[in-house]
């Protein structure tokens, strides 16, 4: 006891290096140099890695087989395919189909469901795109360190090819018109914000491919793309929140279903479709530009 007491006192005075004892007791690791430079034994490491990799593969294979079997059995246990009496065809989907037109004004029940009945999901979804845009921006913009890029000559643009060039002059306006049609008719026919936005962005992407990304960068400014996406997202979030807030307080919305079948009908669905389409278009185009030239 007296001994330990004096040891404690010595420790208090700072004469005992407890860490050395503790380290040897708990961490029977090799000394400093080897611990931080294990490449001294590459053969050993490679062998360990190969063994652990084999173990990993075996374990994962077993896991996959088990998962596959269980999922197949569960699929066999599901209601029959195409069955009209399945639990999914309950009063929820019936109301979407049968009363959707008069309640939302949208002929396309999918659009009515996504942008009116369950609009909160779609709000989240456009923000998934926005979040992905942020991460891609973070990853693809060069920070302090310079990353070697492939040389510019690697990117041949197709402008010099007369066939491609001439065809694209015709095709791009057609694609743009088709995209706008799909976008604004989202509540009347299949399509809507997501597909329309993707089609619009494909026109922009073709433009950037053929005329070269520098020219596309000049024509469609970085700040324009970012501001458009931000405005569209902001509009979606604000307008839908207003609508939610009014509904929760028992007020009817300003936007009425209108006459189903007209282009200006279905209340908020048309503007929301346009907003979603702009977000999708800007995001996809930005993805393209980031992957192509490493900047918007």
């Amino acid at each position, binding site marked *: 006891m007296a001994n330990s007491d004096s040891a404690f006192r010595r420790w208090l005075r700072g004469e005992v290096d*407890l*860490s050395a004892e503790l380290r040897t007791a708990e*961490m029977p690791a090799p000394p400093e140099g080897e611990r931080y430079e294990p490449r001294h034994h590459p053969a050993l490491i490679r062998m360990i890695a190969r063994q652990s990799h084999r173990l990993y593969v075996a374990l994962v294979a077993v896991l996959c087989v088990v998962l596959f079997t269980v999922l197949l059995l569960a699929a066999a246990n*599901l209601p029959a395919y195409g069955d009209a009496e399945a*639990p999914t065809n309950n*009063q929820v989907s019936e109301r979407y189909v049968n009363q959707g037109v008069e309640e939302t004004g949208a002929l396309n029940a999918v659009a009515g469901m996504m942008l009116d009945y*369950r609009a909160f999901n779609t709000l989240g979804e456009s923000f998934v795109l926005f979040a992905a845009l942020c*991460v891609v921006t973070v990853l693809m913009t060069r920070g302090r360190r310079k990353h070697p890029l492939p040389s510019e000559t690697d990117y041949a643009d197709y402008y010099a090819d007369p066939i491609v060039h001439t065809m694209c002059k015709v095709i791009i306006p057609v694609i743009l018109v088709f995209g706008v049609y799909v976008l604004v008719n989202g509540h009347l026919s299949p399509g809507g914000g997501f597909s329309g936005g993707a089609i619009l962005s494909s026109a922009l992407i073709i433009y950037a491919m053929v005329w070269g990304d520098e020219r596309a960068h000049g024509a469609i400014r970085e700040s324009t793309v970012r501001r458009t996406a931000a405005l569209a997202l902001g509009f979606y979030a604000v307008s839908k929140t207003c609508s939610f807030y009014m509904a929760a307080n028992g007020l009817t919305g300003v936007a009425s279903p209108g006459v189903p079948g007209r282009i200006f009908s279905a209340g908020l669905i048309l503007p929301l479709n346009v907003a979603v389409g702009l977000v999708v278009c800007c995001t996809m185009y930005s993805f393209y530009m980031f992957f192509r030239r490493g900047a918007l």
Partner: protein
Amino acid sequence: MSLVQSFPLFSIVLGLLCAVVCFVTPKQWGRRITLALLLASCVMQGWVLRFCYGNQAGYTYQLGHYPAPWGSEITAGLLEPGLGLLCSAVMLLAVIGGGRHIGHDVADGKQHLYWVAVDLTLSALLAMCYTNDIFTAYVFIEICTISACALLAVREGGRSLIASVRYMVFALIGSSLFLIGVVFTYAVTGQLLFPQLREAVAALWAAGTYRFAMTVAIALMTAGLAVKSGCFPFHGWLPDAHSQATTASSCILSGVIVKGYAVLLIKIIYRAIGAEVFMASGAQHVLLLLGIGGMVGCSIDAIFAKRLKVMIAFSSAAQIGYLFMGIGMGTAAGLTAALLQIVNHAITKPMLFLSGSQLADASHGRMDFPSLRGAGHRNVPAGILFTIGAVSMVGVPLLAGFIPKLYFAREAFTLGWQRWPVLLGLAVSTVLNVLYFLYTAVLIWLPQEADCRFKPVTPHWDEFVPGFVLAGLNVAMGIHPGPLVALIEKAVALLGR
């Protein structure tokens, strides 16, 4: 309907809007906007909590003009605003405390994107807490995953890239499993909202039809969320991700994001599937055993960790084991202990990360233990904070870490065969905690060697004030846990209804 009841919706949308504003404004605005948002969110969640506590009841808030099975809903009991408050407060303190590191680790051109990611994370976490719709939950899980990846990958240099790849692979597997579970659930019930889902599942289970598909769905959803929150055998990504990020991100990732998934799991178990059906499926035993495995296995890993932040991250994985063990006990008291563990870990772990990285700063940024020797003398506030956190993690009475352990142990005695593994796990894990946390706490107070080349640093107020706030909360919870326990018990009672 009073204005307070709209606050959950407002806080979610405000987070999204602030993210958008930060995206287009210059970077110096991002920090201010985010701080204001986090503060506003704290106030709103606190207000909602007070409202619900006053009423002793929760409420559901209809989103849109259509009632429950057709439109979507958010719901607020006591659990949701409480956790929202916890998330907002911890994120606020983490962002203040790690502010200088953000300036150092994140390139100037990307700083506004960092704030975007913080805002989106807050919004997604709040939505995951409040949502009453299983598919909305999926969408916001993905937002949370992506913005967590941004928080991680935004750091220049280091191995944050590989850590992000690893994190994303695991996270994507997790969300796919969750989505398959949602698909199976929808296929056999035809519902997506929690209350209707619970009725449908109970009816289905009583009738005995599609029971196998439902069990698989429960298992897949649980497994997906367990992968995402770093439950034991799937925790491979967690130490890298949490240790490679910048300090504020480490605090957010470890302190609140993994908890968000766990809370969603709790909500799905109690609100969407129904506790009886979940217990009948037998999934809780698996969770219990995995939790105990994590408590022991990750603690052993932590002992062999060679760098401070890796050790703290492994300890996070071990602490998440406690949480899953509590869920796996399957009783209300077990769940109470698990929620206490969430609170305890959410206030202790950011403190450890903040003080740990300051100690490393006092050692020229080196994280290995030999360099950290005597670091407490070089940065006294950080040393004190780290010591408090480490002692709390070990589970010394009068600190927060003791409370969940006490409740776990007390609950263990009421269980059947689970009693022995739980008690054994608690004992072994505590001993292992002593080995690595007390060792580190002693190490940083050892006298410096004569030829020490590190100079003492003068700590800046914004580095240690958030830490001391967290330490104050920690001590308060340890000394006087009564109100918190009462609140959580009420929240659990409301959750099961």
